[in-house]
């Protein structure tokens, strides 16, 4: 039961949010589909940006170690900070692309 508690909580609050929004905004199924697609695109954008940050970060650390002898640990890339900053980056980039698509 412990393992299912969080997913059940998410299903419950999602359903409540869906019903409330449906009643107040009167959206149709197409709106929901577009919202889900947009969310998936944003996550995809985050994956690309995160991957790019990790690859570039690794390459730069190895280059700095090689060229200067200065030691930077590869573990600096493992923290939550990079994940959070990358989420912000992805959010801005994704909205830029969306604005561009609308024009």
């Amino acid at each position, binding site marked *: 039961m412990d393992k299912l508690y969080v997913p059940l909580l998410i299903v419950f609050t999602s359903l409540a949010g869906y019903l409330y929004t449906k009643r107040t905004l009167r959206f149709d199924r197409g709106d929901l589909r577009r919202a889900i697609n947009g969310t*998936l*695109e*944003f*996550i*995809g954008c*985050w994956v690309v940006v995160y991957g790019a940050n990790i690859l570039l970060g690794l390459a730069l650390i190895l280059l700095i170690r090689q060229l200067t002898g200065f030691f930077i640990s*590869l573990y600096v890339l*493992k923290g939550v900070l990079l994940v959070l900053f990358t989420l912000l980056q992805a959010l801005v980039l994704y909205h830029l692309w969306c604005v561009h698509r609308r024009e």
Partner: protein
Amino acid sequence: MGRRFSFHPILRTLGLLCVLGVLVTAYTPLPNLLAQSLAVSSNVRPADAIVVLGAGIHRDGTLGKDSLRRAVQGIVLYRRGLAPVIVFSGPSYEGSPVEAEARAELARQLGVPEKAILLEGRADTTAEEVEHITAQLRQRGAKRILLVTSSLHLPRASSRFERLGLKVFPMPVDDLPLSTDGPDGRLALMVYTVREALAQWLYRAGE
């Protein structure tokens, strides 16, 4: 006129794969199987030295939980009489005390005699740890070591020691059990497994 290329379907597919990946990782034994395929299991035997690899210390001198766990395991092996000396490794991290010295202090307080303790506090990477420790142990004529580190770190660490001529008996110590079955534990295990797989690949590429 041709249609303009759009990134959106690619991003959507990546996003979907990411969500599915998280669900599969959290709710199936996939991370356990991957971790177990990379890990080295325990083979504890009498040796010439116990080597406890570094794992991190906080700036205030508190040993990180991996570091503490490994140090305690090394001390237990010593107290069982499995080797006459114990090598503590671990440098200073950005102004922190030297990890090896903090572990040695713990060992002294737990009854390990001063003459049985060796320190390696300069190495920043696993490769450097292996080089420095092997040099110290060679002077003492050591040929077999009991190596204490995490089960996913053991493959690259022990292969380095063996390349320098030492016989390694592995003693894995894990903060996160490879059999963990909670969703959070499995996600953390997957991240750790992928990181170690990447590190192993980088080590092989650098050789």
